[in-house]
């Protein structure tokens, strides 16, 4: 209910630029939800999500021009889900850090494949998509896209929420906590691990396809390891294994660079051209962003969704009511 009010308020009050940023945040949130199902709930750490975004975007490029927007998104979802199925297989043998390395390999290989494909098909500057029509509606403004994306995010949130509250969600959590014990208590580990990869990459693929249609441009340079890392940062900052956390984290990580750039521009507006600040603005922005993410990681490694509970327990501790909870947090 609160979210609906916020969403409507943004629609009517915000400037077109703000809505553009909000749209990017919503797109990121859809992908972050998918990643959190895989990493947060099932415990499979992946830095391959930029590759999945790319697969979604390239499928959209190939299909949307011929078969329209809806089929393009559907095809992207199917293609990335299939890719997720394939990538999921190493996860049946590899655990923890080895899985991270295999998704790192995926990132480099997919980026290379798309670079080759793009340069050899003569589209060196990337692909441009035409205007998007959804039935009779023309998605020709940021506001129209905003409405569509809010609906998509609501649907994605509902699907993710239903999944984690039913049998797959419980199986995923069991696998995350201890895969051998999960198998002992009757969880089909192979099936549910692959399901997590398929659904997660499907979410990411939809986000990739929608982003391609929204920004109207697709090129391999956009799908970097840094992008993949930004998505991992989103779910950690928001909170692992948290639906709301995925959305909060996506919003923060997406909006932060814009805020930093704005702040830097207004603070340093008087700086002389060619001065240190003017020359190094991108690096100042990048280091500020990295520092803020670092602060989040170091002081809130459990994510922002846990913050209210921690504030309450800290307040209780201050009154000396609960000595036990402090000991639990002790680190070797």
């Amino acid at each position, binding site marked *: 209910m609160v979210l609906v009010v916020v969403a409507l308020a943004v629609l009517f009050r915000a400037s077109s630029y703000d809505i553009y940023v909000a749209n990017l945040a919503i797109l990121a949130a859809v992908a972050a939800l998918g990643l959190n199902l895989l990493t947060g709930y099932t415990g499979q750490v992946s830095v391959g999500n930029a590759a999945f975004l790319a697969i979604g975007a390239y499928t959209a490029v190939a299909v949307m021009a011929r078969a329209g927007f809806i089929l393009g998104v559907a095809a992207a979802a199917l293609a990335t889900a299939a890719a997720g199925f394939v990538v999921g297989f190493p996860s049946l043998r590899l655990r923890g850090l080895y899985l991270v390395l295999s998704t790192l390999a995926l990132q480099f290989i997919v980026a290379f494949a798309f670079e080759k494909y793009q340069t050899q098909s003569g589209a060196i500057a990337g692909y441009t998509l035409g205007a998007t029509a959804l039935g009779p509606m023309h998605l020709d403004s940021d506001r129209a896209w905003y409405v569509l994306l809010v609906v998509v995010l609501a649907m994605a949130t509902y699907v993710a929420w239903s999944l984690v509250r039913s049998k797959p969600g419980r199986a995923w959590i069991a696998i995350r906590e201890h895969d051998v014990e999960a*198998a002992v208590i009757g969880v089909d580990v192979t099936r549910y691990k692959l399901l997590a990869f398929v659904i997660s990459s499907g979410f990411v693929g939809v986000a990739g396809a929608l982003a391609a249609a929204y920004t109207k441009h697709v090129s391999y340079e956009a799908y970097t390891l840094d992008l993949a890392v930004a998505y991992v940062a989103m779910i950690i900052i928001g909170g692992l294994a948290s639906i709301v956390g995925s959305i909060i984290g996506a919003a923060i990580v997406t909006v932060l660079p814009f805020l930093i750039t704005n702040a830097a521009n207004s603070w340093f507006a008087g700086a002389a051209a060619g001065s240190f600040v003017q020359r190094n603005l991108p690096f100042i922005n990048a280091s500020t962003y990295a520092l803020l993410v*670092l602060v989040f990681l170091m002081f809130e490694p459990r994510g922002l969704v846990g913050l209210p509970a921690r504030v309450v327990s800290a307040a209780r501790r201050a009154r000396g009511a609960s000595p036990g909870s402090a000991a639990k947090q002790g680190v*070797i």
Partner: protein
Amino acid sequence: MAALPEALAGSLVLASLYALIGAGFVMVYRSSKVLNFAQGHLALLGAYLFYALSVLLHRDFLWTLAALGVVSVAIGAVLYLVFLSPLAGEGPIILIMITIIIGALIVAIVPMVWGTQPHTLASPLSQAGIHLPGGIVTSELDLVTIATAVVVIAGFWCLIRFTTSGIAMRAAAENPLLASYRGVNVALTAGVSWAFAVFAASVAGTAYGLRATLTPSITGLGFAAFPAVVVGGLDSLPGAMVGAVLLAVGQNLAATYLGGDWTDVTAYLVLLVVLLVRPHGLFGRKELVRV
């Protein structure tokens, strides 16, 4: 295939850089099971520190190297104390993210301090070709680079093999709590391994910077060294060396037969195959649980 010995000799220099960076991965991984994604960025930082120290010390090569050793060891210890040690006991994903962010910070800060223009490192080592029997062409700088890599890694290996610190590292990584009960100083062990890792990375970065001009974009070295370490085994120093040689030769062959743009992706194709066929690498200790 008359070119093979030559290609092998040419690969050895690249292999020594990979091996040095890889040895840093191995040290950190052995002592704390942390995958250090910042290793290539630390090599970049090391090369720029060499440049700065070289200017400071009036281009005296040996003194600069010595100073670089001290500074890089200090940086490693500080990185561990400030960023890693407060988060000991967190999940691997948090620790990996911390190393990635450390790398991002280095990449953002280096051009602010030293600018984006290329720098040249002063060196007394000649790059003029020395002709060896068998048609192999090498240079003073190449030979010194290879020798340095061998000496540094052999030093690490002796330390692990002949002192208790190797066992302490393994214990600290396997179970920090139990290791601390047995008198292992877990923080010191991990801190020392970080110091060694930054030291090895700095040497690799400097060796790279000495043969090319230095720009803020050489971090790819670290990501290319990942596959080398996995091929050899994440926790094995000899493995890192063998893996580095195999990978460098493989990349050279790929560049010769497929084209120069295939070098990076070859490394990752090899990585993927090794992970699927033999995840613990050629020399690593097996730690697989089947489900």
